[in-house]
């Protein structure tokens, strides 16, 4: 999978992250480091805190405890809570991608596919219409969308196409880190396989780092290098993906792994 070198410094560091809503603990004591080119899967069932964690590390939610730091392109590790508005905008518009489970959340459903991809480029200062359209068109090809459909709005697309378009929109600015929330969640199995294969190739070709939240262990196995298993807001087991899935130690992880129905 993706290239890594050992002397790399971490891209994102989470330290003792926690989020509470009154007495309710959504997420507690989560610490990890993510390296460039590394794909981390966060698995667990509904309510385990994995989506809360994703929102915390992507600065969409303020933590009740702990901190998240990110290495900006100048090489300096910065606390996300202390970033200025311009730096935050840079992260959200350029250096990060966010693939939502529901493509309608990550796309503008009423404007054309080309505009959906081009918009991210315009937000970072591209202004040459022809170049924007060419780049959008080549990204549609990369995610296997017929370029004849470039002027159609995603609301006319199938679920699988919408999800691929969302990926193109996110990757066009060449982000270094992509957050994915159940990226194959609402799709048919055959469509899932195609999407997974596509994501796997893009992640390794572009050397992307990614944090993928999923309840599907097959998705974790196919996409990720490392996995964190969450339960009740805590990380209960972590390690190399194939190690955790083939040799699970914790009772809950053993339950998860043994609950997969054989095809």
């Amino acid at each position, binding site marked *: *999978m993706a*290239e*890594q070198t*050992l002397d790399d410094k971490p891209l994102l560091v989470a330290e003792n992250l926690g989020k509470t809503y009154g007495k309710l603990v959504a997420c507690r004591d989560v610490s990890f480091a993510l*390296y460039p080119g*590394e794909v981390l899967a966060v698995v667990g069932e509904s309510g385990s805190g994995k989506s809360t964690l994703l929102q915390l590390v992507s600065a969409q939610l303020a933590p009740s405890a702990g901190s998240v730091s990110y290495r900006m392109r100048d090489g300096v590790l910065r606390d996300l809570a202390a970033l200025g508005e311009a730096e935050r905008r840079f992260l959200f518009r350029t250096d990060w991608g966010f693939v939502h489970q529901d493509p309608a959340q990550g796309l503008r459903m009423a404007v054309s596919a080309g505009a959906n991809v081009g918009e991210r480029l315009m937000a970072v200062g591209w202004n040459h219409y022809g170049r924007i359209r060419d780049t959008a068109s080549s990204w549609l090809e990369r995610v296997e969308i017929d370029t004849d459909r470039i002027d159609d709005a995603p609301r006319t697309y199938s679920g699988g196409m919408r999800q691929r378009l969302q990926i193109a929109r996110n990757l066009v600015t060449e982000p270094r880190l992509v957050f994915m929330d159940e990226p194959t969640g609402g799709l048919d199995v055959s469509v899932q*396989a*195609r999407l*997974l*294969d596509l994501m*796997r190739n893009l992640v*390794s070709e572009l050397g992307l780092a990614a944090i993928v939240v999923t309840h599907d262990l097959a998705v974790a196995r*196919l996409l990720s*290098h*490392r996995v964190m298993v969450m339960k009740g807001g805590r990380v209960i087991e972590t*390690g*190399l993906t*194939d*190690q955790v899935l*083939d*040799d699970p*130690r*914790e*009772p809950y992880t*053993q*339950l998860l792994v*043994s609950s997969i129905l054989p095809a």
Partner: protein
Amino acid sequence: MNAMIDITNAEKTFTMHLQGGVELPVVRGVSFHVVSGECVVLSGPSGAGKSSILKMIFGNYRCDGGRIGIRHQGTVIDLATAEPRQVLSVRRSTIGYVSQFLRAVPRVATIDVVAEPLIVNGIARAEAREQAGSLLRRLNIPERLWALPPSTFSGGEQQRVNIARGFISDLPILLLDEPTASLDTANRAVVVELIDQKKHQGVAMVAIVHDDEIRHLIADRIVDVTSFASAA
């Protein structure tokens, strides 16, 4: 002596939490080493822990005790305690693993499945594909199948694709789990040849083979796993 693999007192126990916490000792006191250019065959009956030992050397199963020293990029890494990133690095540039079954990714063409380990290590796609093609040809996989994903192939064909994928890289350590299990005589002979070539290139190998004839042909040394199992 320069051991590529040096295992001391490695042990593994499964704790089955869903079966009331039953402890299942697999191996204990595993100690042996493998040098460059040598093929060590693990012997012992089914269930003695041969595959588990291979998986521990690959970092797929975690080690509960002892040490698994692997010579990696000029230093020695203990895989029993290595960080996930180190294990991945060892797998990318030091240890290859030919499992019994191919875990195929849907939609990926056979030629690309075989070429992938080279591409990951920075070899150009065209060159990697050419090498993949020559290995597939040697293993008698007809060219008309190369563009298809191997998931539709027969067991023997899948195993040969898996072997091609395992043998394509120049990794200094190779782990072979029943590489000839579902092959006919002609293809078994090809695998024996490939193993011989790797020996000449100085590759250290650990293999599991049930076929006595093949074992006789490839083994430089036999390590009986029964003693590790009975000590548990």
